[in-house]
């Protein structure tokens, strides 16, 4: 199960509370944080995939 799938599953958990209360709860916060961190990781990986071949091709720098 990846972070986004886990976040979806957390969304389905409810403890007799309002949406606002749920969002403010640790479970709601965890779901949001899992998604946010996953998006950040993907953006950074995309950045690496873009720049590293360029540095290797034009400047011979391999990382």
């Amino acid at each position: 199960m990846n972070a986004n799938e886990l976040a979806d599953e957390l969304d389905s958990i409810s403890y007799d509370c309002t949406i606002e209360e749920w969002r403010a709860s640790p479970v709601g916060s965890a779901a949001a944080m899992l998604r946010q961190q996953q998006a950040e990781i993907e953006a950074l990986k995309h950045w690496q995939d873009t720049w590293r071949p360029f540095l290797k091709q034009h400047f011979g720098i391999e990382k």
Partner: protein
Amino acid sequence: MNANELAVELEHYLKGEEYDRLVWEIPDLLRQQQAELKELKLARLADLDVILKQRAEIELLFKEIPEFEKVFSNEPVAYVTGLNKFDSKMVDTVLKVGTPLYTHPASLVDWSYQQGYQVGKETHPAKTLTDEEITEIFDTTFEVHDYQDSFIKFARAILRKAQEKCTK
């Protein structure tokens, strides 16, 4: 609250069935993500450092272009003005005052070559671009958000412009 603090709080919050299954999974995944993010951010900083160094070197090369153009454009770099003091290299020279001096060896061979050089210079002007032309091409091809392709676009545009000058 960062991921690690949240993970600790989650361990106290979850209950029942979910507790057994998720109490390990969520904190573990959050901590794993946090570690991965830290590593990726450090790697990005290192990459940025390399990119900025390469950029500085390229900018330095751009600044040297006018000097290279001066050397390779067959323009005289100086003229004989006469001797103010004894110079062992110049004392036996037959060059008259006003003779242009070149760094390009071919232009110093002999009179007939000089004549040919003059004719060639007039009929085939140097294929160089002015600073303004280079700057104009740079402005129209270089895009900050597309840094990677911009070098290639810039180089191709320079070559195209120089070629246009040749065929005119």
